[in-house]
Each structure stands twice: as structure tokens, then as C-alpha cells.
């Protein structure tokens, strides 16, 4: 069963109407979700017709259907990737056994925690981005923002389905709480730190979707390996949607860089204030934004040594990125892994059991993936013939979680004193003045095919459409 049943109140490919109790529970949650969307979804957007992608089947042939939709009418639903027959657990102490179709009692608490933590990030990012629509640099970008928002909403549905279907009353309560926490709210914040930060401008949004949604990708990839089959199938389908979010980030930053370089060449200027005088974002400011978002995202992977991570792996709840493609024994009992430690104010490598370092393993995979994209941004600068290059800061830079928290490390990996940190912080991370400058550029562009001065046009339209169609129609 893979086609999605759109005749149902809640579109799904999980045969929801065969389980009346579950169906009723979710139908009771649905109006609460819609009310949350009404309050916390993109501001002032509810009447817009948006050119959106909706899945009509979880298989490649029916994956992307495009049409104009009012976002409150978007068909949020429950879609799992097709079940793989006879799938076996392929890592940890249960390796070789059949995957679980129900939650084993002994793993219930851990699985619930994993699902709730993942689920909490989805509405959080919608809340973080809810004002951005008012300053979109083009209709194309506005549409991309909204596509991300509705899909984060759908990812929330994906997690809520698991909570309702497999975790009984606790699950229903957790599902309600997902709609009650609010990003940045002091008395009831979202679970993870980075999801309580503001996304104040579009450069921050592009950096967020490039780096922070990439954390999402790696977490989802690790969960797609899970022995709990419904979680694996859910996250597998979510990954297909997540790819669009990273596309928005990578191409967004790339277009900002392209525009800056274009103006720098045209007017033959290099100094940041000259670039700003042209209404573009100087490459140095882009580097500072990069440093900030990158380091904050690295913290999302958790402590560098974690017995929870070891337990999650051993028990088969969460694998590594591309677990199946790795050639080792998938038990990792005798393996070590090098993590960074601080000794006498200096960074030194220290070998620890790999099982305890799995957060670090996933973080290092993320770093490799992130660096490759930054390399592609540099190609844009190189092509323009400019000497500037963006770099990814050292992984110990500006960390708040784990062994490296509180240690002062420069972007190049050099330990620095608190004084030097204080003196240089404004060169390394965006200052209030940087943010104010970027914010001053943010003005809404609503003419089809037109783009704000600080960003170049994309290379191609959505779904092969031309660039100048009204991707959003205001009503």
C-alpha cells in the first residue's frame, strides 16, 4: 500500500481507517495542529495561493505534485516509505534479527525521547521563521520558505503519528506538548538550544537551512537505520523532503555570494564598507554568519562522549550515517575513535571507545558534508576572479556543549585567552551592527521575476517553471 489516500480527513498511506481509535485520536489532534498553524505559522500568509509541492505517493513516480494551495488547506498527512520485505536489524546487539513493527517494552522510553526530540524541532523552525515572509527578496524565495514551512509541519505529523500509534497515552500527551512549547519562550521553550534562537533575516535563514537543516538530515539518516521499522520508514520519506530545505540554504547563500561578487567586480571594490555602500552583503559578514550558524549547529549533535549514544546504537534504536554502506562489524565493541580534549589549555586528540563517541562520529560526518558545500560557494568567488575564500571554522570554535564548552578557541583552532576572545569576537561572529546592516537590506520584493539588490536570481525555476511566474499570489 503506497498510494496516499486523499479521500480521508487525514491523508495517509498507513491504512488509518482500519484503526478507528487511532484515527479518532489523530482527528482530535488535527484541529489543534491547525490552530497552532493559525497562530504560529507564517505571518499574514493564510490567504496566499502558494505554488507548492504535495506528495501524492511515497514512491518516486508520484512524489511531487505541484499546484497553487492556500497553506491552511495544505494536505498534511502521514506518509511512510514502502516497507522493505524481511528487513533485518543490521547493527548492534540484535543484528540479524527481524526489525520491530511494535515498540519493545525495554526501549519504549528511549524511543519516545528520540521521537519527541526530533518532533520538537519541526514546529520550532516554523515558529523561528514566521516573520520572514514579510521581507522575502522575491516571490521565488517566498515560495521556498513556505514550502519548507509546510513540510516542517508535515514532519511534525510524521512524529505525532508514531507517538499516537505506538506510545499510547504518554504518546498522546507528548503530541499535545509539541504544540504547546514555543521557540524562544522563557517558561516553555523548545527542547534544543538552536531552536530557540531567532531567525531574524534571510541570510540567517539561508545559513540555518544550510547548516541546521543539515543536522536534521544527519539525524534522520541515523534514524532511518533504526530497528524500529515504522521510525525508519517515516524518516526515510522525510529525508526526501529535507533535501529541498538544504537546497534552499545552499543555493540561497550561493546567490548572495554571486550578487556580492558581481557588484564587487562591476565597481572594482573590495573593502567591506565599499561593498555595503553598493547595497550588498560583504563576504566578511557572510563569513561571520557562517561561523555562528556552523558552531551553533555543531552543538546539536550532543556531547562528544555519551553513554546514551552508545545505548541507542547497541540496542539498535539509532544507527550511524550510511550504516549499511560501512564495511565494519556494526558492533563497534573493540573500536576506538579520536575526539578532542583540552589539556593545559591546549587541544589534544584522545582515543575513546567508538560506541561512546557516536555523537562525534555523526558530527564529523556532518562536518565533511558541510565543508564540501562551502567549497562550492568558494567556486562562485573563484569564478568571479576574487581572492577571498570562505572557511569552515575549527570544530572547537564557539562550542557550548561537551568537553569543548567554555574553552576559547579561535576559528583557526588556536586556543586564545578570554581577553583575545573579547577583542576578536566581533571579527569572528556577527555583531549587532552586522545584523542591523543585513536587516536594513531586507525589504519585500513582490514583482514576479524581480529580486532584491543583495541577491542574484536563481539558476532555474521550481518544477521547471520559468523564473517570472507568480510563485505566490496574494489575495
Amino acid at each position, binding site marked *: *500500500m*503506497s*498510494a496516499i489516500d486523499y479521500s480521508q480527513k487525514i491523508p495517509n498511506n498507513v491504512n488509518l481507517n482500519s484503526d478507528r481509535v487511532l484515527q479518532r485520536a489523530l482527528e482530535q489532534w488535527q484541529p489543534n495542529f491547525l490552530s497552532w498553524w493559525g497562530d504560529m505559522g507564517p505571518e499574514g500568509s493564510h490567504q496566499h495561493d502558494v505554488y507548492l509541492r504535495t506528495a501524492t505517493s511515497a*514512491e*518516486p*513516480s508520484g*512524489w*511531487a505534485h505541484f499546484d497553487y494551495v492556500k497553506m491552511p488547506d495544505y494536505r498534511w498527512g502521514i506518509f511512510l516509505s*514502502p516497507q522493505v*520485505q*524481511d528487513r533485518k536489524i543490521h547493527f548492534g546487539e540484535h543484528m540479524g534479527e527481524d526489525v520491530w513493527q511494535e515498540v519493545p517494552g525495554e526501549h519504549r522510553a528511549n524511543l519516545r525521547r528520540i521521537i519527541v526530540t526530533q518532533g520538537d524541532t519541526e514546529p520550532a523552525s516554523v515558529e523561528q521563521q514566521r516573520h520572514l515572509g514579510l521581507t522575502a527578496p522575491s516571490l521565488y524565495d517566498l515560495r521556498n520558505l513556505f514550502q519548507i514551512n509546510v513540510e516542517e509541519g508535515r514532519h511534525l505529523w510524521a512524529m505525532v503519528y508514531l507517538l499516537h500509534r505506538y506510545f499510547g497515552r504518554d504518546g498522546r500527551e507528548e503530541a499535545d506538548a509539541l504544540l504547546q512549547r514555543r521557540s524562544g519562550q522563557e517558561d516553555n521553550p523548545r527542547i534544543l538550544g538552536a531552536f530557540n534562537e531567532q531567525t531574524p533575516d534571510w541570510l540567517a535563514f539561508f545559513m540555518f537551512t544550510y547548516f541546521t537543516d543539515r543536522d536534521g*538530515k544527519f539525524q534522520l539518516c541515523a534514524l532511518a537505520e533504526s530497528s524500529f521499522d515504522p521510525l525508519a520508514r517515516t524518516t526515510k520519506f522525510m*529525508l*526526501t523532503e*529535507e*533535501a*529541498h530545505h*538544504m*537546497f534552499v540554504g*545552499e*543555493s540561497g547563500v550561493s546567490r548572495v555570494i554571486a550578487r556580492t561578487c558581481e557588484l564587487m567586480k562591476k565597481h572594482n571594490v573590495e573593502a567591506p564598507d565599499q561593498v555595503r555602500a553598493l547595497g550588498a552583503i560583504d563576504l566578511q559578514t557572510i563569513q561571520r554568519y557562517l561561523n555562528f550558524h556552523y558552531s551553533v549547529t555543531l552543538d546539536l549533535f550532543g556531547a562528544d562522549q555519551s553513554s546514551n549514544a552508545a545505548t541507542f546504537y547497541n540496542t539498535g534504536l539509532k544507527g550511524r550515517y550510511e550504516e549499511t554502506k560501512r564495511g565494519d562489524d556494526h558492533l563497534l565493541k573493540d573500536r576506538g575513535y579520536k575526539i578532542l580534549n583540552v589539556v593545559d589549555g591546549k587541544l589534544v586528540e584522545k582515543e575513546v571507545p567508538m560506541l561512546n563517541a557516536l555523537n562525534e562520529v555523526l558530527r564529523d560526518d556532518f562536518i*565533511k*558534508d558541510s565543508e*564540501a*558545500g562551502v567549497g562550492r560557494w568558494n*567556486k562562485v568567488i573563484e569564478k568571479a576572479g576574487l581572492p577571498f575564500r570562505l572557511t569552515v571554522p575549527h570544530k572547537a570554535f564557539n562550542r557550548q556543549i561537551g568537553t569543548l564548552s567554555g574553552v576559547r578557541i579561535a576559528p583557526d583552532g588556536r586556543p586564545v585567552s578570554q581577553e583575545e576572545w573579547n577583542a576578536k569576537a566581533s571579527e569572528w561572529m556577527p555583531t549587532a551592527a552586522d545584523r542591523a546592516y543585513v536587516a536594513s537590506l531586507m525589504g519585500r520584493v513582490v514583482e514576479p521575476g524581480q529580486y532584491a539588490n543583495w541577491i542574484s536570481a536563481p*539558476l*532555474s525555476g521550481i518544477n*521547471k517553471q520559468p523564473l517570472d511566474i507568480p510563485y505566490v499570489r496574494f489575495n
Partner: protein
Amino acid sequence: MSATPDILKQHLIDPVICIRCNTCEETCPVDAITHDSRNYVVDPDICNGCNACISPCPTGSIDNWRNVVRVKAYSLDEQLGWDELPQEQEIEGAETATTSPTGGGSGGADETTFTPPPVDAARGSTVPPKSAPRPVVNSHTLKQPAVATVTGNFRVTELGRDYDTHHIVLDFGSSPFPVLEGQSIGIIPPGTDAHGRPHHARQYSIASPRDGERPKYNNLSLTVKRVTSDHAGNPVRGVASNYVCDLQKGDQVKVIGPFGSSFLMADDPKANLLMICTGTGSAPMRAMTERRRRLRKDGDGKLMLFFGARTKEDLPYFGPLMNLPKDFIDIHLAFSRKEGQAKTYVQDLMRERASDVAALLTNDATHIYVCGLKGMEDGVMDALRFIADQHGIAWKELHPRMKAEGRLHLETY
């Protein structure tokens, strides 16, 4: 005859736009896509042009095609070294005829308004039957369509009914347009839409065998239903279907294609054909049946047809079908709106004839073809599994095997 180089429409990924998200590699049913730390690339020796990767790609970088001489296709090593795609090269001695990996892309630069046939790549075969001849595909594109002359237009459902289905015969005169049973063509309606853009090409399955509706003439036939309402039942006049159904003898029509390189008839006369269709999904079944009828001899494989329509009167070709010899083809008609009778669908009749279907399933010469409305696919697949289970056939094992051997073909819309 001068030798024309074998042209491949090579599938490539644009490294400038690609974000290396791995979605295509994850999606590809035949593992044709791979990557290194720099680029994602498509192996021209493996890619079969099934297009499963196209719509999940978030960037559009996946949808790039270059015509190359097959033996000089860009290798994986070359692709891995690219910073950008190479320019399209002129190919010396090449005619318009190109063969795509097998099924063609969702479009080269000149095909932006045409969508290829919907093949269910997840459940059905993406490779043709072993004995199918190699098809010609995409010999005519939007830039260089073939022009065919209408030599016949007959109504094949009863007059005065909701359903108005026509049998159209097109003649290509002296320009070659070789097709195989199971392939389809695109027709470009003349004029422009409300926005002043040319109309999209519409795809229709060919209803005649490879040697023509009228043997030895360069012609083919189509089965086209006049569209008078949309999926939601609202009245709408289908641009292309009305154009085609209203064609007069002597009219000229712009044709592109042919398309399709996996949903093809097994050429081995010993092959059993299990055909399941609804409505105009009967077109390829008619083509295959007619091919087998023309070549019929003792000892041929079996033909079994399950054909669904609302009523007898709505069933295209009802009369001619009934005239086929019973020992040539085993026909079962399912009517979902027959007065005074419970609704019957093709899958219901398949269950009724479970033992005969099971006998075909156990035979390695059996090829299954399903064509028609999307809604039938789940029911048919369930029925097949049910019948297999009932007869002790391991469907879990048989299904992927038939799929891999090009013996299970699904084309629904």
C-alpha cells in the same frame, strides 16, 4: 544504407546546481547513480532512463541530457572531474534518430513540455522482457515532430453513451516511424493555450502491432477517449483528446516519440501474456493480441485478458474482441456499473479465475501487463499476491524476480 552512429541520450547531473543531497542515489532502483566527495554521477552502462530520480530531486540538476555517440559516452571518471556540464556536441553523421538510455528523459532542451510515460518503477519492471527487440525511442521531438495523415477515425464505444472512445489511424507516408507493441506516441494539439504558449503534447498508447494497423503500410492506430470532465468530475473539455477525436480523414497531425522502452511485448511466441486493463489501457493489449493473432501457430504461449469498463457499451472494441477465437485468448470482462449486478472489477475476476492465473504465475514464460487507471493498480497487485499465497507460491520471492526479469509491467495514470 549508410551507417548512422548509435546515439545515446546520456543522463547527466549538473554539478553547479546539485547540492549532493544523495536523494537520487537513494531513489535509483538500479543503482546507476554514485558519487565521490566532489560530484554525483550517472553510470551510462546502468541507467535505464526510468526517471524515478527526476521528481524527488530538489534542485532540477538531475534533469540534464546530452546526445552522444554511445561508444563515446562520458565515463564516470570524466563526470567526477567536472565543475560544470560540457556543451552539447554536434554529432557528425547523426540524424534526428536517437535512442535514450532506454526510455528517454523527462526532456532535453527541446522537450520541456512533455512528460514521459508513467511507469511504476517501484513495483513494476524497469527493464524490457528479455525477448523484446530493442525499441527506437524519441526519434521525433517537439523541435522536429513527424507529420502523420489521418486515414481513419472510428467510434469504438456505443453511440449515445457518456464514454466516447475513438480508434484513430495515422499514416506516416514515406517517413519512417518504427514502433513496437507497448510503446506510445505524443500528439501536439495545434494552437496555443490561454497564456499564448503552445499546448503540451499528450501521450497515447499505440493500439496496433509493429507492422501497422493495416499490415505493410507505414501506419499505426490509437485508442483515444474524449475527456469531458476532470478527475473531480467537473466538466472540462480536454484539449488534446477532443482534437484527436474530432480529426477528419486527411487531416495532418504532429507526432513525437515513440516513447517507452520497458513496457514492451515479449517477442518469444512461447511467452504467456497475462493482460489486465481498463478503458483505453486496452490499447497496448490490442496491439499485442493482434501481433500474436497475425503470427499465430500451434504451440504458442497462452493469452489471458482481464478487461474492465463501466458497462458493456463503454468497453472499447467490444464487438471485435468477442469475435476472437476462444482457443486463442481467454477473455474476462468486468463491468463496474451493470444494472442489477454487484460492481465487478478486474481484480474480482482474477480471484474467480485464481487457479488459471496461478498456473500462469508458476510459469517462467509468463509476462504480466497492467495498463489503465491508477486506481486499479493496488487491487491488481493485491489479487496477484492473494492468488500466489492461495496456491503456495512465494510472492515475496516471485514479485522481485518477475520485476527484475522484465516480466511485470505496470503503466497506470
